């Protein structure tokens, strides 16, 4: 590439970078200010002195909810991935008449606006005594996660040669045995993708969290963060620091496992 071209390219990308970095900048610098120096009027200026700003308080206020989120997201991501792997295995290697239709019916659940199931969901969770609880949220996220994890695993397993499964069957291995012995060892990359995808989605969820769990002590971190900024006499440095704290787990996963993250989100897109 010619020098002038490269400078032009860097210039344009640099301008784009300002746009993408702007909210992160606002979040971090205002989180680092103390309560007296944070205000809308000085939102663009750097903190005057170095301090932990609102982070200590944000952490104190949000860490119980952070724990709730972890307790919710880890089992939910694991369970929905495991169920998705089993389903994807059947839909790709044990196809039967009508299996494609069933798959499409299952996949439909990924695309519905969840508002359309919200009220019955809440009533149902009340009925089975899981309303207002983290296990209730785990169940919700697992059930509505199945469709996309099934999709990801099915697309992954389709590229595994059928001959491997057939060979195992001829050797006398049953359906589950074949899954355990042959498919599971191959599935690590797909698990990584679904786990990251589900972790991000469930961590960032707001709608289920706010409707299924009304008690502030049991709410996930996204709802707690929103409550911080919704209450009277808001300490904005705490809100901004809280936003950073709430974003940290998914941001770290993204920075650490970026390539898998990209693959995850592209597989979330239904591919023809």
């Amino acid at each position: 590439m010619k020098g002038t071209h490269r400078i032009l390219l860097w210039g344009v990308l640099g301008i784009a970078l300002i746009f993408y970095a702007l909210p992160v900048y606002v979040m971090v610098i205002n989180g680092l200010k103390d309560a007296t120096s944070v205000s809308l009027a000085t939102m663009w200026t750097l903190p005057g002195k170095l301090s932990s700003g609102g982070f200590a308080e944000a952490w104190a206020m949000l860490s119980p909810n952070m724990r709730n989120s972890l307790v919710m997201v880890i089992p939910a991501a694991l369970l929905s991935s495991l169920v998705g792997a089993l389903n994807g295995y059947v839909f790709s290697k044990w196809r039967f008449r009508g299996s494609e239709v069933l798959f499409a019916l299952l996949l439909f659940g990924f695309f519905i606006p969840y508002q359309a199931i919200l009220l019955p969901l809440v009533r149902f969770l009340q009925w089975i005594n899981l309303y207002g609880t983290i296990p209730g949220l785990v169940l919700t996220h697992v059930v509505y996660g199945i469709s996309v994890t099934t999709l990801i695993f099915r697309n992954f397993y389709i590229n595994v040669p059928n001959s491997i499964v057939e060979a195992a069957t001829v050797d006398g291995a049953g359906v589950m045995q074949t899954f355990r012995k042959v498919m599971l060892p191959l599935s690590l990359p797909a698990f990584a993708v679904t786990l990251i995808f589900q972790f991000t989605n469930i961590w960032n969820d707001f709608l289920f969290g706010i409707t299924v769990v009304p008690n502030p002590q049991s709410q996930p971190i996204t709802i707690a963060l929103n409550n911080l900024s919704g209450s009277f006499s808001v300490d904005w440095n705490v809100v901004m620091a809280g936003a950073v704290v709430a974003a940290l787990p998914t941001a770290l996963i993204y920075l650490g496992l970026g390539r898998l993250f990209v693959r995850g989100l592209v597989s979330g897109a239904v591919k023809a």
Partner: protein
Amino acid sequence: MGGNPPDTWQTHHGAEVQTQYIGPGFTESLHDLYVEEGWYELFTPELLQTVSHDGVPHMVLINLHRSNILWYNKPLLIEHAVRVGETLSYDELFEIADHLQNSGVAALCMGDAGIWANGIMFENTLVGVMGPERYLGLWEGTTAFTDADIRQAITTYSRLLDYLNADHAALSWDQAVDKLLDGGCAFYSMGDWAYGELTQAGMIDHEDFGWVPHPGTENTNILVTDGFTLAKGAPNPEAARNMLRVMGQRAVQQEFNLLKGSICARSDCDRSAFSPYLQWAMDSYNTTVSIPTVVHGSAAPADFRQALNDALTDFVVRRDEEAFAATLAREAKASGFGQ
């Protein structure tokens, strides 16, 4: 919606607690607690009635707010040679507002990023124009929602909207209090929870700010309360009962209300312990008619409150008085009022 409610929770008196919690059977009777603590004598019969179902109380009230106050920035008015007496009529208010507007000052403060703040001004104006009896009639079925007074109130309210600070939609109700004390606007029709904000900012009664009843509501106290109920099937009923006992104690109510900027729900708090405004509020509570608020859920159930909020959100921008009146009448009918 809770199937697993907490042991006790905070709510407002009137329709909110009666239709949302007591009626569907989410709460326990507190009769024995009232007898033990002697509360039947310490809360006025009017208050008791608003927290009771079939004559049995289900809630302990901790404080009383007055929703219909017109706060003003005193130095700002002095600067513009405006004097305000004990009360203010709409004519006087509009005259002052024009005068201020001509000097480039927004006469009325508003922070309606949450629309309910504008709801307070509307409700205050509705009561101010109709008077408390006819307003109560709306909820009791003796005043029609097509009443000409409602149209009159809407017209007056619409005029008030002409004087708002330009950035009202960007501000929350408490940021509008800040604007008032910074001199960015002159009057604010708001409940006395604004008083808590003013005192916290170090403002002094009668010096930095003053107050009059919202025009036309001199003899009316639009009441907003906070109180607690006991959940039916509470996991720890004894602990919850003990908490309610504490909430009802005189010393606790006195301490709490000194901080919150409201008056005690009990009638035996020590008047001299309170600030000038709160003493004024206690006296006015004892000499005026208390009526329930829609905005805070005491007069009408949640569905009508939402409908009113939505109608206001639309009206504040579109200013179609006909449509506003028609919507109110239709929604009131749908919620079972005015029949």
